[in-house]
Each structure stands twice: as C-alpha cells, then as structure tokens.
C-alpha cells in the first residue's frame, strides 16, 4: 500500500516552515511524519498528513509549490538491529531507497518509517513477499 507524501518547496527564509505548519494547523490538518532536505538556498519539506487532498489544495491556494509523491510506510522492530533487518532484505533484492524518515507516532511496539524508493511498485512487491507490514492510508488517518 502506497501512502501519499506531500513535498513543499521552501526558500531558506525565516518563518517559512512556520507558515506551512500554521496554515495546515489552522485548517485541522495533522502532520504525522515530517522531514526537511536542505540546500544552501532552499529546502524541500516532506510531510505525511491525515488529509492529504485537502492539504495540497490548501498549500497551492496559498502560493506554495507542492506536489504529491508515493511513499511506503513500514513497521520496523523497535530494537537494536531492527532497521538493519529490513534494509538487509531490501538490499538483497536490489531495492534502492532515495530517502527515509521516521513517524512521530506508532501503533504498536514497532517503529514506523517512511521510505521513498526509486521504484515504488517493485519495492512493494518485495516487501509483500517478505511479509513485512506496510501501513495503509487508512491506518495513518486513524493514528
């Protein structure tokens, strides 16, 4: 199951991250996971939210450049070597990860990670075969 990530272009200017977060907050959109990739002059904010359709509409209406990307959220054993065990499987099957980051919450004793793959469909097949739990959009909304 793919989930939707929203990426937002941000200039390295004071208050821009606040602008995004307060806009989403004011409209009842809850951020579930977040990361920022930065360069010397701009950054890309990547977020997973509970209402992605509404959020992207809101952002674009407010002059932000924002796009959808398909990502996969995976449950990882929250213990030493937990992530390594997942990465080992992915690596053995030649699945490339572009980037990854963690969720704020979790539903079980397992940690929740967002992964952006070079080839999302292929990555999903591999994960399904290995019976690694992939989190659905519904589960995210219910968090």
């Amino acid at each position, binding site marked *: 199951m793919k989930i939707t*990530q929203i*990426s937002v*272009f*941000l*200039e390295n200017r004071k208050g*821009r991250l606040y602008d995004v977060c307060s806009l989403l907050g004011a409209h009842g959109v809850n951020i579930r996971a977040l990361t920022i*990739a930065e*360069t010397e*002059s*701009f950054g*890309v904010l*990547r977020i997973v939210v509970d209402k992605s359709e509404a959020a992207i509409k809101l952002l*674009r*209406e407010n*002059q*932000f*450049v*924002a*796009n959808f*990307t398909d990502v996969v959220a995976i449950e990882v054993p929250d213990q030493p070597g937990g992530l390594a065990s997942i990465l080992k499987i992915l690596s053995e099957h030649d699945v490339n990860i*572009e*980037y990854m980051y963690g969720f704020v919450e979790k539903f079980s004793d397992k940690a929740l990670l967002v992964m*952006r793959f070079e080839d999302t469909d292929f990555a999903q097949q591999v994960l399904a075969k290995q019976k690694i739990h992939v989190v659905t959009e519904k589960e995210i909304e219910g968090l």
Partner: protein
Amino acid sequence: MIWKENVECAARADLKELQSGYLRKLIPYIYNNCAVYRRKLDAAGVKPDQIKSIDDIKRLPITTKEDMRDNYPYGLFSAPQDQIAEIHVSSGTTGNPTLVGYTRDDVKLWGEVMARAFCCAGAVPGDTIQIAYGYGLFTGGLGSHYGALEMGLRILPTSSGQTARQLKLMQDFKPRIIACTPSYVLYMAEEAKAMGIDPTQGNWKIGVFGAEPWSESMRREIEAAWNMLATDIYGLSEIIGPGVAQECHYKDGLHVFSDVFYPEILDPTTREEVPEGQSGELVITTLTKQGIPLIRYGTRDIVSIRYDKCRCGRTSPRISKIKGRTDDMIVVRGINVFPSQIEHVLVGIEGTQPHYQIIVDRQARKLDEVEVLVEVEQRFFSDEIKQLNVIREKIRKEIENVLSIGVKVTLVEPKTIARSEGKAKRIVDKRTL
C-alpha cells in the same frame, strides 16, 4: 483596416515632403517659444531658416532625458501654460520625474495615433477593448483610452490590478481586444488558471502589449497561454505616450507613425546614423506636437529600422522589437547583459517561466557576481533535491552559454519576485562603483 491610409501608405517621397513641411514650421516655433531650445540651437550654430528639408534634421542637436530633468518642470515647453490641457509625469528613479504637457491638439494627435495603432493591431470599430494599463499619471491608460474613443471602440477602462475583476469583466463583456503590459497578461493567465478559468478559452483575441520590452519567446508564451494574437506597441511619454509605433498582424516590425514622429537610428556613443538594418538608439523628433515638442530625443531604446513596404500595405518605416536599453543594459566584467537574454533562456527550458530577477553584486576587491533568481514552478518541482539541482544546473549552464559569464542560479518560491502590474523589475544592481 488602415486608419489613415493616405499617410500610412504614402509613397516615401510624399512622406518626406510632408515631414519636411512640418519640420520647417517646427524649428522656428520652438526657437521662438522655448528658451532652452533657442540656447541649444544657438550653441549648435543652427539658424531656423537653415532647416529646409527633413534631411537637415542631422544638423540639429540631440535632446536627452537629462535635458528633460534639468529643465523640470517648465523649461522645455514651447506652448504657454494656459494652452496646456493635460500633464503626465513618469516616476524618476533619480531626481526629478519626467514631465509631459499636452495641448488640446496634442491630446487629439494622441488619440489619432492610438486609433491608428489599434487599427494596425486588427481592431475594427465596434470592437470592445479592455484597457488594463494603469490610468492616471502613467500615459498607458489614458492614451489607450483616447485612441479607443477616437476609433469608436467600446471601452472597458479597467486600469491595472484587481486581476480577479479583470477576468470576470473579460468573461462578462467579451472584449476582443486587451491592452496591458505583456508581463501582466502572463500573470493574468496564471491567475485565471488558479481561479479555474481556462485562458485558452478566454475572450481576448488581440493583445496590444507594451510599456516594457519583451521578447519573441514571451510572445509565443502569451499567444499559447491565451490563444490570441499578441502585438507589440511602442511609445514613451516624452514623445506622446503609447502610439509611436505598432505591429500589424504580420508581426514583422512595428510601424512607426513617422509623419508625426520622425525616427532615426544612431550609434549610442558617436550619435552617427547607423546603416539601415543595424541596431542603434532610436532617436525621435515630434514633428507636430505643440506643448513640449522634442527635437531628436534619445529614447535609450536599442532597435533596428527598415523602410521596405509591409505586406499589410503600409509604407511606414518599421522598427524591430526593442533589443535592449542603453540604460537597462548592465555591464558585468566587460560583458553587456540584457535581461531579455535571460528571459529567452527560461522560456526555452521545459517547465520554467520567464519569472526572474538578475542581481549583480560586487564584494570588495572581487569580481562582479551575477545571481539569477528563478521562480520554482509546479511543473518542475520534485520532492528530490537532486532533481531540482538538475534543473538549476541546466538553467545555469544555458545562461552561461548565452552570457559568457559565470552566474549563480537560485530557485525561489513562486510570486516572490516583484510581479509587475506596471513594469517588471528585472535587474537589481547592488554594486557601489
């Protein structure tokens, strides 16, 4: 339709005769009524009775923007103030604003040349025109208004700004003609899309765009965005405002209304006439104006000129689109840089829009540095930094190819570069020389 066929299609010899007659009257009029010009002519050693034909114009001194500023407000008037019907000023970035004063006849002349311009663009009496140039001290709005009145167009005098209302009025009154700055019409296309209006289904079929230089690539953008014919109008307030020259639907040069605004193309440094077809500064003499007639006024616009007959039937000389400004041009590390070059690059790259700003800076004892700000577009935005860097690199390389100097390209958020509802600020020169 040609508004004033007898002059717009006149044989060149007849036109010369007409121009010579006007000039013979103009010089004594100015000499006797304007102390500044009397001094200038005396200093050049020219007596009014020596000016017999239009060819003698070369003997006359050049008028510059500095002359206008130095003699602000009344120095260059040839008509007494009780004959002045209207005054316009354009904002001066340094010192005094540039002032123009029209007699009633000058206003009539303005209406007539603007009627010629709209006709030349393809308007016919009975058309509706939306005038989205600013009304007020800026000449764009009122000049277009007088021309539209003269021509018998139905006018929507929307002035500039309030884009949502502009678009609503377009849909409600279906004007076939839009007159505004080219950057504003592109901006309105973006706004239309944001409002759920498909600009290719818009009502405007002919655009009369001016008040700022724009390139062929920008024309293609506008024509594709709005599915319209985009024509270029040229003018400057010192001469009359808009209405000095206008493209016909062949878009093969701007027809100069040379029976009243006599054009010369001079080398900006030597002030010698350049050979036909070569680029130089456009210098204009107003042959029939009364309020502030100007002799050989240096427009600072770089154009070329041609004198062959156009396919539309007009014989008037045609100037190219503005290729640059003698004062907009910045010199960076010895290289001439025109904003239009950057614009051209951006339009040529898939996904980018010509929304940019050039910042030139110089650190102490260092080389000049050029930074080009480019707005990120939805179409090329990616969640991956490396993809954004690929686009940025591509823009940088192409600009460097064109300019032959190193530049830094910075991606900025959309609509952060001052988007003109008047004129675009393309260059920020922070160098303290």
